[in-house]
């Protein structure tokens, strides 16, 4: 007897048909509030668009950045979104490889989140370019200038890493969707049927198809795992490759990866809780899943906390006065506020997750995860801005405060992310029907006492 992998009471166990119906219900049911949310997102995106247009017209000067602090909110938000992007593939791939079944009901959402997060992150390198209309200089293609990009530059690594990560995540996500699209094809009629039919690529679930499907899914999981690690390592090298005190550190890669997973999990929780409530998926996404995610959150929080400590240890241990001054100033200087917000949200708050009661209270989890997201944004702010503001040449020390343009665009990026997510939630199954059914099937097998 295999042990139950989904702790749904046996009698209340949904049938495979229930699964089809419940999970695809939101797609057919209309929600008034949904359109309102979508409208709000659209409006914010438009505002950000205007801000960006003005920036392109007038120049980067409309942002608050200045000479020592050449990177500001844009890059901070970029790193933030790349971080968010990491939970998705982690949950789908790594947990798939280690066969932890609780991923089943959340991996679809997590992967979607990944894709939209990368789409959001990808905008910022463009937005922060002084001459975005020449961004194609970064692209290696045979040009009449006979010039090629500089592959020694971390920014080019970045472009390749993010590009690959987006493509692979998309393939991974889409592959998982195909059987579900077939389900929808068979549920609906008319235009919907034709659309889903087209995207399901004629899937009809013969056992042979499934074997190809499972094989590729395994491989993708296999390659996606190192990819996840590589992507945020590369992002961290954007900084670690620099000589800026506070950036030039060997712990950055693991430090950033942990932070990315940390923020990613937090974002999954932040999104899943309202989604579950809104679409009535309590049967499928249960406290059991949240409990596991909370544990993961706690673990990564400990790693991140360790990294914070280690940064200071290394600064002290290096006996380099410049490095030491940089870190002293980070905690006590003009930016002490952001620094302590970061410590509180990322290290102190998650400690409450040691207690099962917190882990099982969705309200608490929601609050904590939101705090963690805020904290992680500030972490990037602290790393990027404080280091630049207090560098080698004291005469060049200078502080930075974000401008309205930057903040508008940052808010817009959130709207942009949720806009896509809302579209997804309304048009595609937010839970992998096939995988859920796979489990239910086994349950029923054993239930029927075969």
């Amino acid at each position, binding site marked *: 007897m295999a042990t139950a992998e989904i702790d749904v009471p046996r009698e209340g166990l949904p049938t495979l048909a229930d699964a089809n119906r419940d999970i695809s219900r939101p797609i057919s049911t209309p929600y008034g509030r949904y359109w309102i949310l979508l409208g709000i997102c659209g409006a914010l995106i438009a505002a950000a668009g205007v801000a960006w247009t003005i920036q392109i017209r007038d120049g980067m000067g409309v942002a608050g950045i200045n000479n020592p602090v050449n990177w500001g909110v844009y890059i901070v938000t970029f790193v933030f979104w790349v971080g968010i992007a990491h939970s998705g593939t982690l949950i789908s791939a790594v947990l798939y490889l280690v066969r932890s079944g609780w991923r089943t009901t959340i991996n679809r959402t997590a992967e979607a989140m990944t894709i939209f997060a990368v789409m959001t992150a990808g905008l910022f390198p463009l937005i922060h370019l002084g001459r975005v209309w020449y961004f194609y200089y970064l692209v290696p293609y045979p040009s009449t200038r006979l010039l090629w990009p500089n592959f020694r530059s971390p920014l080019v690594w970045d472009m390749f890493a993010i590009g690959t990560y987006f493509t692979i995540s998309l393939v991974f996500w889409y592959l998982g969707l195909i059987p579900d699209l077939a389900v929808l094809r068979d549920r609906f009629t008319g235009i919907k049927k034709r659309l889903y039919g087209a995207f399901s690529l004629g899937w009809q679930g013969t*056992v042979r198809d499934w074997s190809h499907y499972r094989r590729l899914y395994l491989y993708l999981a296999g390659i996606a795992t190192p990819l996840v690690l590589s992507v945020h390592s590369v992002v961290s090298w954007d900084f670690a490759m620099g000589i800026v005190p506070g950036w030039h550190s060997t712990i950055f890669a693991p430090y950033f990866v942990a932070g990315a997973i940390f923020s990613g999990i937090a974002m999954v929780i932040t999104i899943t809780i309202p989604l579950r409530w809104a679409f009535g998926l309590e049967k499928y996404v249960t406290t059991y899943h949240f409990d596991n995610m909370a544990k993961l959150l706690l673990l990564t929080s400990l790693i991140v906390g360790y990294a914070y400590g280690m940064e200071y240890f290394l600064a002290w241990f290096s006996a380099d006065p410049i490095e030491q001054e940089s870190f002293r100033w980070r905690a006590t200087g003009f930016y002490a506020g952001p620094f302590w917000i970061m410590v509180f949200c990322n290290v102190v708050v998650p400690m409450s997750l040691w207690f099962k009661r917190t882990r099982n209270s969705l309200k608490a989890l929601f609050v904590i995860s939101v705090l963690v997201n805020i904290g992680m944004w500030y972490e990037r702010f602290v790393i990027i801005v404080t280091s630049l503001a207090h560098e080698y040449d004291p005469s060049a020390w200078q502080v930075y405060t974000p401008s309205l343009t930057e903040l508008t665009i940052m808010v817009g990026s959130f709207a942009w992310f949720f806009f896509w997510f809302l579209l997804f939630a309304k048009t595609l199954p937010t839970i992998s029907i096939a995988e859920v059914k796979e489990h239910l099937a086994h349950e029923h097998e054993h239930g029927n006492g075969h």
Partner: protein
Amino acid sequence: MSGILAQFETLGATRQAIERLRAEGHSELDVFSPIPAPELEEALGIVASPVGRWALIGGATGFLTAVALTGLTALAYPLVTQGKPILSWPAYFIIMFEMTILFTGLFGFLGVLHHTRRPGRLSAHYRPTFSVDRFGVFVRAAAGSDQRDVEALLRSTGAVEVEVSA
């Protein structure tokens, strides 16, 4: 074409039917499943999917493309930065890694498309229930006694619905 399409409700029953059919010498089976079912693959004796080979070729291609791209472009217009060599392989390796992964995934997906692709319309034996909770087994069988035997077999293994197409 003539044959019999049976629908099952459970994995176990389907598996049983398949095993019995193959024992009877019916190896020409189209089996539909609403869920990924390794058991049925076993029963049908399906060997490992060739998609893996696609992925491998993709990976190699990606790696070599990256080597060529980084190396040759660096030589195309040699510019020194920070006294680093024109061919800074350690830096270029990151590009190679990413390209390897990228091409692996893309080729693998092409593989799946290639192997699962079929002419536009779904097979005549496909039933929408197969995407809900039914398992389907289609047996090619000539009309006559043969058909009757198979039908009996299928019913005995718990087929909830049997269609005979002549």
